[in-house]
Structures are given as C-alpha cells and as structure tokens.
C-alpha cells in the first residue's frame, strides 16, 4: 500500500530525530585515550624524556644544508677564543638614561679613554656588554641592551676605532649590577661594560 511506503520512512526519520535528543536511556559513548595506566603519575622527575607527540604525525624538521656542528653562521672573531679582561676598563662603564640608548655627553670622556686603550694595543679586541634595569619586558630589554652596546661601538668608531675589532652582546636585564628595586639600583644597571679581549695563543 502506498501509505506504508510513505509512513514507514517518515516514522524512521521521526525516531531518528528523537534519538538525538536523549529521550531514551543509553550507555555513554566511550573515548579511548592512547597510553596505558602505567604512565599515570609522571611527575617529570628522572631523565629528560621528549614529550609524547600530541600531533600524531612524524615531525618534519627543516633540511639543514651544512654539516652538523659547523659554525656556518659565525661572521666575526669569537670572544670564547679570547682571554677576557674585565678589570682593565671597569672604571669606564657607561651609564644610560631610562629607556634610552643615547650616549650622554658626560660619558664622552670614557669613550676617549677606551679608544686610547685600543689604539695603544693594536692586537686588542673589545666586547661591549649592554645591560638594562628591570622595568622593561625581557625581550624589549634584550633589544635595548643591544642598542646601548651598538651606540657605544658607534661612538668608538667615530673616535677612530675599526668596527671589526668590536663585538656587542646584550644581557637585557639578566645581569643587574645592583639587585635592588629602586632608582638607585636601576641607574647602576642601565649600563655598558667594556671587556678587553686578546686572542688566545694558537686560536
């Protein structure tokens, strides 16, 4: 009968609609998570283990074109291959105004002293450290410290020193000279320090 052919599918559709609304008692669906109960309670202690890959596929790493370990990205002399003398120019540490990398005019005498030292010792190299007080974010301060070191390098170049002899390194706010939390400490931390370097024998 034609009516049966119409009613039966409609009844099925209706039943299916109500099936979604939970108007019946059913067993809960089951989610099976990967990994055994034996991995419970992993507190992270013990040897370093790479974390399980939550993405489930093979990690594709960039293809590196040069040999592992080769310092292909190095483009200057390496302070690690040098004897470093922090005391020689400790008195010439330059201080900066808040949030600024401008070399203050009152610091110019120190620039002259440092440039004279480098001129009198042609084999000497210079590592300039840039530091900040704690009032910026870590990343902002890492950049500000670098700008301070670069500003000092530029001042030395203007005083006649070859730029190739000078490297810069920023420590952001990671190495304060004074651990205090007031302007007295902060003013000591906003600084550039000069580290005199000589290449090690055989380096």
């Amino acid at each position: 009968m034609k009516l049966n052919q119409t009613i039966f599918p409609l009844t099925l559709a209706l039943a299916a609609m109500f099936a979604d609304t939970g108007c019946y008692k059913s067993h809960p669906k089951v989610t099976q998570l990967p990994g055994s109960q034996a991995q419970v309670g992993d507190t992270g202690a013990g040897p370093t283990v790479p974390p399980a890959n939550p993405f489930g596929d093979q990690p594709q790493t960039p293809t590196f074109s040069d040999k592992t370990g080769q310092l292909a990205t190095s483009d200057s002399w390496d302070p690690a291959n040098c004897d470093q003398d922090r005391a020689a120019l400790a008195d010439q540490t330059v201080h900066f105004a808040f949030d600024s990398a401008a070399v203050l005019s009152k610091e110019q005498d120190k620039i002259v002293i440092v440039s004279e030292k480098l001129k009198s010792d042609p084999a000497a190299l210079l590592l300039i450290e840039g530091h900040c007080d704690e009032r910026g974010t870590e990343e902002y301060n890492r950049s500000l410290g670098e700008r301070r070191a670069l500003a000092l390098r530029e001042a030395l170049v203007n005083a006649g020193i070859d730029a190739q002899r000078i490297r810069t390194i920023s420590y952001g706010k990671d190495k304060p000279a004074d651990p205090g939390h007031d302007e007295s400490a902060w003013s000591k931390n906003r600084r550039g320090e000069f580290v005199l370097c000589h290449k090690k024998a055989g380096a």
Partner: protein
Amino acid sequence: MKNYFPSSTKFLSVIFSLATATLLAQNQQNLHMDETIRVLGTTPPVPVALTGFSGEAEEVLKFDLYVQGYSFVSPDQAQYLINGSDNGSVVGSVTDKFARKVILSRSYNGASLRRQAHAFADDIVQATAQLKAIGGTKIAFKAQGNGGAGEIFVADFDGYNPKQVTSDGAIVARPAWMPQRMALYYTSYARDNPDIYFHNLGTGQRRVVAGYSGLNTGAAVSPDGSRVAMVLSKSGSPNVWVANADGTGLRKLTSGVEDSSPCWSPDGQWICFATKFHERRRLAKIPANGGEVQYLNTSGAGNPTEPDWSPDGKWIAFTRQAGDFDICVMPTDGSNPPVILVAGQNPSWSPNSRTLVFNHGSAGHQTLSVLDVFTKQYKDCHRAPGSDSQPAWAR
C-alpha cells in the same frame, strides 16, 4: 479495509509540526548562544554546576573550564549540569537545563585520570560553546634561576608534567613552537652569545640557525612552518629579518630604529612587531614578503611590546609597559582601542583564540597563568622550578 490511520495528509501534517517544533527548539537554543556578545574583559561566564567529581579529576575540570569562560554555581543557578564520577576512570554527562536534554554522555579510558579529565573538559566545551580543544595542548617556557641562567621547559598547558628541554646552565629566552610539530626555536647563550637554536624535541637534536655577532633573538615561525622571523642586529641595529626555517635565505624585512618581537598573522601574510615611530613606542605590521609598515592603534596602552596574533585572526594580545606590566588585547581591524585586562607580560594565544597564557608576579618570581580574555578569569599554572616566563602555547 478499515482505515486505521487518519488520512495521509493529516498524519503528514502532524509529523511535520513535530519536526518543526523540534527544529525550532534547537534553533532557539543556538540563538541563545549566538546572542552572547563576546566583549573583552566583561563577558559573563557560562554558569555550570559540577557534581560527582573529586581530587585530581575535579581540579582538572575546574581549571580547564574556568580558563575557557565558565563559572561554578549551584544546580538551580546553572545553565548546564555536569555530572559524573572518577572511580578509576572518568565518566560524565552534560545536561542543558533550558533545552532539558542531555547533550553529552561519555566515559573515558586509557592514559591517565588527568588526561581523561582533560578530554572530558574538551568535550564539554565542544558541546556547549564549540571551542577548539585545548585539554591536550602544551606550552614551552623558560625557567630562570639566580644569576640569569635558566632552561627551556615543555609542559601541559596547566603546567603539569614539565619536561626539561635544555641543560646548558646558560641564559635562555623566547621559546617558539614550529606549528603542528614537536620542535622549538629559542634563544640561548650556550655559546656565550645570544644565538637562535632550532631544537627537534622528538630526536633531541638541535643546531644554531642564527648565530651572527650581536643579537639573535625573538624567533617566530610562520603558520605553515616554512619560514622564521627573527630579530638580528647584524646590520648595526636590531631589525626584523625573515629566513627559511633552517636559517638560509636570510632577508632583512624592517628598517626601523628599535624593532623587536615579531609575530605572524595566521594567514602568513603579515608580521606584527614592536617598533618606535615619532619618538613613541608602537605596534606595527608589515607584509611578510616586504612592503610598507602600517602602525596599529594602541591608544591608551603606552609602550606596547611582544604582540601575539590570535589563531582566528581577530585579536592581537600584547604587553603594555607603564611602570608595571599589563596584558592588553585589541581587535586586529583597529575598530576599537586595546582593552587592558590583567597585570602580566608575554601573552601567547591558545588554539581557541580566547584563552592565553602569560606570566606575572614580582621581579625574579614570575608564575605562568592562563587567562580567558572575554571573562577576564585567570588561574595560575602548576609551578615549575625557578622564575617562569615567556610562555609559548603550541598551536
């Protein structure tokens, strides 16, 4: 033959009415959810009642739901009733009180009780708000000890199960995930210089991808994983450079005076970064393949830095430095100025584009915390050793 059924037309019309009524009821429920306009910082949380759980399972459910915009109330005040048990494994159901129906009913086996509770929280969120799951996601961060040295860690997004990635005893900074991969970029002074490393977490192998003289930091990977943006000072000032993911093909992108902290738009077309323009700190964006810099409207949030672009493309979160630090969020179309949300720094978006991780606390004693930007609800992560900061959410 006796006609047992009413006429076919009448019967069909009855069925049609029932069908329409059911669909209307469902649509009205959907309309109720869509009408909730999500306003930064002032959106009311979705009230739920949680019963039957205790200990670790309850802790996980409460954490996960709280940082995705839910609050916990008594059953008569709740919109959803979450019921279940955790004897040995998690079993749970969710009832929509207004629609008067069970919308979720599941049991969870395998892995650990924590993982099961996270999976149930994901399903609850999926059933009630259709958010992208975050229960099984990871964060990377730096844990710093005294003297500036620290190590990179990876953990569950709530801080549990931390795994140490580096062991150099050197200054580290800015971990960044390769999207969809168990691989990180980070800055490390292991060679006595701030260098950017690529580190394959699966094999444990790593190498320097940028180790030029001066500063190499701020690595951010493009959404398709093919390129990395970095802050390098090799040209004489810190600027944003872009290279292939292995560091080759290096190209200078910006020429500002004080550029830092790049991040990518989710479509890979733009890089947003912090810079200085006309003596004021600004956020800016530039086409990833080069072009004109456009400055973003961050009025009201001075000294913006460390932007992060939400995965759905709609929001940029950043830190404002104004004596102290605040987490701010602004719409990327510039239609409204930033909203200042909570004290803290270094926001990183989760895959759901409403929850983010950041760090806050006192100097040298930072803690990671997870924030929902619409309700402004946040909760501290399980603490790792040291001062924890610069988190990056894997997505």
